[in-house]
């Protein structure tokens, strides 16, 4: 589990925002660590924040096996959160992931970076929701 450190204000406010809405939200820090996901996200991810704590990128990608809808591994850099993190721009995609209990979920994800003045960068917020069949 990644080591915790004091959070910047944008991350603190992002977490409070996420904690008070019903949309599933994840929050990554400036190093790509998954530092928070809210209760609606817990229901989809099949894990609670308290159970897993903060996760380094290699940890959360292993825990939630993310792949393309049609199957096939998707590198972190090509995921919306990876694009938002690396390119500092919003990104959207449809993906699938498999939780620890073996359930496969198909989701849409929109990720956006938290940018400050000049070159300040605080992390990424991603909202996601399950694709619903026609």
């Amino acid at each position: 589990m990644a080591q915790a450190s004091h959070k910047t204000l944008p991350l603190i406010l992002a977490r409070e925002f996420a904690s008070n809405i019903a949309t599933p939200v994840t929050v990554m820090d400036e190093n790509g660590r998954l530092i928070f996901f809210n209760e609606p996200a817990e229901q989809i991810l099949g894990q609670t924040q308290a159970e897993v704590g903060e996760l380094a990128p290699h940890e959360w990608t292993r825990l939630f096996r993310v792949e393309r809808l049609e199957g096939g591994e998707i590198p972190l850099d090509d995921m919306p959160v990876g694009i938002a993190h690396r390119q500092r721009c919003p990104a959207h995609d449809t993906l699938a992931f498999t939780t620890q209990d073996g359930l496969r979920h198909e989701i849409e994800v929109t990720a956006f970076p938290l940018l400050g003045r000049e070159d300040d960068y605080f992390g990424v917020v991603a909202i996601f929701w399950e694709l619903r069949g026609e």
Partner: protein
Amino acid sequence: MRATVWGCRGSLASPGPETVAFGGNTSCVQLELADGTPVVLDAGTGIRLLGLELARLPRRPIHVVLTHLHLDHLEGLGFFVPLWEPSVEIHVWGPASPVDTLQERIAKYLSPPLFPVQLSEVPSNLIFHDFPDEEFALGSARVLAEPVSHRGPTVGLRIEEHGRTLAYIPDHEPYLGAGPEGVDPEWLSGFSIADGVTVLMHDSQYFEHEYPNHIGWGHSSVDHAVSFAQASGVERLVLFHHDPLHSDDQLRALENRARGLWGANGHAPELAFEGMKLALDTEVGAHSPA
């Protein structure tokens, strides 16, 4: 380091017979550092009388350190006597904005129609600084300015000299969207500023029953101020940014409430008052309000 309170009222100056004990001037705290560097925390209406005092002293560069630019922290700047003396060098520090410079934002107030004179007409040598991301030196002190939860770009200040630290967070809503229970310090706005300081001057604008109608306004209730101070392990809590609608009697009740919440351990919380002096370089002490 010695601190003197010249204004501790929040939101709006509130002179009158019901506020004489704690004072009606808005935020302004003078710091006297060991090397003599004059530092002024915020430029509320309390800065007017401080300016008269500083004008009597030998000329030195003055540092005016603004936690944010809400009017109750800025409105006294135009009446700060050293501002109008050509021989004076004044460094103005403030939080950066992603849009306008600090100078441009202050000029919005110090210009017509809100003020009769343009900022560009000010004769003193004004030098504007955005707070750096890292700790920086002000005279013989080290200063850390970090964003805290309040409306608009706002910082809390951690000022350290000779191992004694003052945290100044006059406007702060640390528990916005979450109660004090169960918040890890790492997720607590302002914690890195207040962690283990000698003295914390902190927002406590509301009684608990007033807070629900002001959630999101950027200020603390008295119980939140006490919780924040205790979570931060501060030695001494000085409550600040008094509501303009609170009389001296109400503020005494708020102080009693804070002491009840604090419990018996350590130094009991106190309310800031105009004229309060805190000697952080020796034993920290303060006389009582009138």
